[in-house]
């Protein structure tokens, strides 16, 4: 109804906040808190969670998400056609790679997956 806000306080733009949120999302999804508390080894051969695996799978998820965002940007009317086409291809390839790699990771982690 009114602008009764605290004095002298400029807010960051929504997209800046979104970028920060994406970064924290990446950390949480990679099991960062688990890594800090339980301190598993970086990499190994038995069926336990490891740090590097977590970070790479988290990166795959974020990449897939960004692919969908790029698809939406590609369908935005106000850009040149070539830019739209490159956004579309980048988006689709991000989604495909992200999905395939995530499926690969889960097949490694869970031996009897989908049987």
């Amino acid at each position, binding site marked *: *109804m*009114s*602008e*009764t*806000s*605290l*004095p002298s*306080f400029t*807010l960051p733009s*929504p*997209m800046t*906040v*979104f970028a920060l*949120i*994406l970064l*924290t*999302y990446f950390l*949480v*999804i*990679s*099991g*960062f*808190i*688990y890594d*800090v*508390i*339980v301190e598993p080894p970086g990499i190994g051969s038995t069926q336990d*969670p490891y740090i590097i*695996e*977590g970070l790479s*799978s*988290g990166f795959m*998820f*974020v990449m*897939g*998400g*960004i*692919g*969908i*965002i790029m*698809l*939406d940007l590609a*369908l935005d009317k106000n850009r040149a*056609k070539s830019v739209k086409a490159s956004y*579309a291809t980048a988006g*689709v390839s991000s*989604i495909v790679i*992200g*999905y395939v790699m*995530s499926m690969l*990771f*889960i097949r490694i*982690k*869970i031996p*009897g*997956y*989908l049987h």
Partner: protein
Amino acid sequence: MVTKKTSPDLLNSFSFKSLKLKTKQQELLIRVSILGLVYVLAFIARLFSVLRYESMIHEFDPYFNYRTTLFLTEKGFYEFWNWFDSESWYPLGRIIGGTLYPGLMVTAALIYWALRFLRFFVHIREVCVLTAPFFASNTTIVAYFFGKEIWDTGAGLVAAALIAICPGYISRSVAGSYDNEAVAIFALLLTFYLFVKAVKTGSLSWALGSAFGYFYMVSAWGGYVFIINLIPLYVLVLLITGRYSMRLYVAYNCMYILGMLLAMQIRFVGFQHVQSGEHMGAMGVFLLMQVFYFLDWVKYKLNDTKLFQTFLKITVTSAVLVGGIALGVGTASGYISPWTGRFYSLLDPTYAKDHIPIIASVSEHQPTAWSSFMFDYHILLFLFPAGLYFCFKRLSDATIFIVMYGLTSLYFAGVMVRLILVATPAVCLISAIAVSATVKNLTSLLRTKQKIPQAGSTKGVGSSKSSSKVTLDQSQPFQKNGAIALLVGVFYLLSRYAIHCTWVTSEAYSSPSIVLAARGAHGNRIIFDDYREAYYWLRQNTPTDAKVMSWWDYGYQITAMGNRTVIVDNNTWNNTHIATVGRAMSSYEDEAYDIMRSLDVNYVLVVFGGVTGYSSDDINKFLWMVRIGGGVYPVIKEPDYLVNGEFRVDKGASPKMLNCLMYKLCYYRFGELVTEYGKPTGYDRARGVEIGNKDVKLEHLEEAYTTSNWIVRIYRVKPPTNRL
């Protein structure tokens, strides 16, 4: 080329001759049928264990809930509300009426009485088993309405479908999992939906509805603390981003005051809303809202900007100062209690590991590894950031709420595995926004390109595109094909999600835990029903006033199925009592006998997995008994039971380990048994070693019963020998 004339012919050919549906009615029919299918799907996806085994209650906590519901239906509400139970925590007893959340039991009892009123005479156990799937179906409907509020009906439908089969939710709401979360997630989503609706419309009736939703949530689960902190945080964010409005004022004030008054009706919660540190955030925001309203009114009355600015500065500083002083005085004088350990460990995850071993020992309270996220969410993890992006593109009061709910709940899910359940509705809703927006974009791509050849005249879309029609003509079929391919891709991903969810539900989350299953040598299924065998033996072969000592995990099941008094159970409200039992289990037999005599113990129950290879037995939990016992009685030291920091039960184990009560009770007569072909006698299949002390002799206890697969072993405590 499709002309408009064929559509009535098409309808006629479906033999709906007199039923010419308009578009709006067609849409309504599609929506209602989709929601109906989703409702049924959510129910039947949770029935795997009922079909495979039988209709029984799973796990540990649900047995307590079942026992209390049984008591409620037999004795009535007032007996239930004032119940003092002397059958658990002997000799202390437990004030059940004042230490439980009654929402679940009252809900199941109401359903039971309603069915009996309609002359369906079902057993209360059937109602208890099927309460969780029923409420999961109701949650999908609430999710539909919530999605409609945040985005549009398409997103609502997708959200309902996603949440119906999401493994994160199924894990705690299968048929048989009669636990508080079954009802609480429904209450949580309902409260949030009603509050967002209240903020959007500013209507007092929606705010009232959300207060009652909050009351239902408080009566159902201790996780209501999440609501009473998220909603004030949301209000704070709205205030900071300059979205203060009269609607927000009405909604929050009504919900907070009424919700707080209603919550005080639950004895377990009591006056915590004004006394506990976890609830102070809500009160602070409430006072802040009054300050905002006051400032607004002063600004309206005072038409001078400069004077108002100085007034603003003075008021804000004095308000913050007064609030801070009040909080400080309250905390220092002890009136406002600090954050309890369970919730404090969410803010500081390392706290429980160092200070409270009981909280740290529960496997559900561990932080989440990346594989758990993947397992419980599958493609929703891709759709979540995309959904956040769409929300940020179209910021409104409702989308800000769902973003905050999603982010806070996902952070807490990262800290504690159990809280993935709370994050699931938010993740499903935000992912639904992503799916709906993407599908809308793609189908609009398909549609606008179709209209251009037809709309030679007036349509706005056509006229704006007409100038670029020539250049777009060549790429039209390419873009249309691309859009169709992408739509097929979206449906492929969603179908993979459905396959994953069904597989996960069937393999991982439909196990009753009280009945174990394994594959035999020829691939046939072998069922181990040892737990229930032991509990029924207790029920039928021991005197009714016998007291049973076991580790706290089995307490609820022993009281519910064995109908005997226990020393400690899953409520874990008295750490010293549990530590006494832990001390008894880890001492030599003579000291343990003294402790058992002081607690009037008649029977001791242990769980042993050495014959079957069952790994969740008492020997694997033994170190926790030592830690908890040692936390209260310094005479129990953990290094005494370890050899070079390693926990062993074979010949190289420490002498204290080889002679403590737990070892003796588990391995009594085990040294004579051959468990695996080609291995020596006394080979422990769960630890994979031959045990160190095969010749176990018991002086003060005697074996009463061992189940057919040696999983549960019961011993009788002998009375003291006569003095001469």
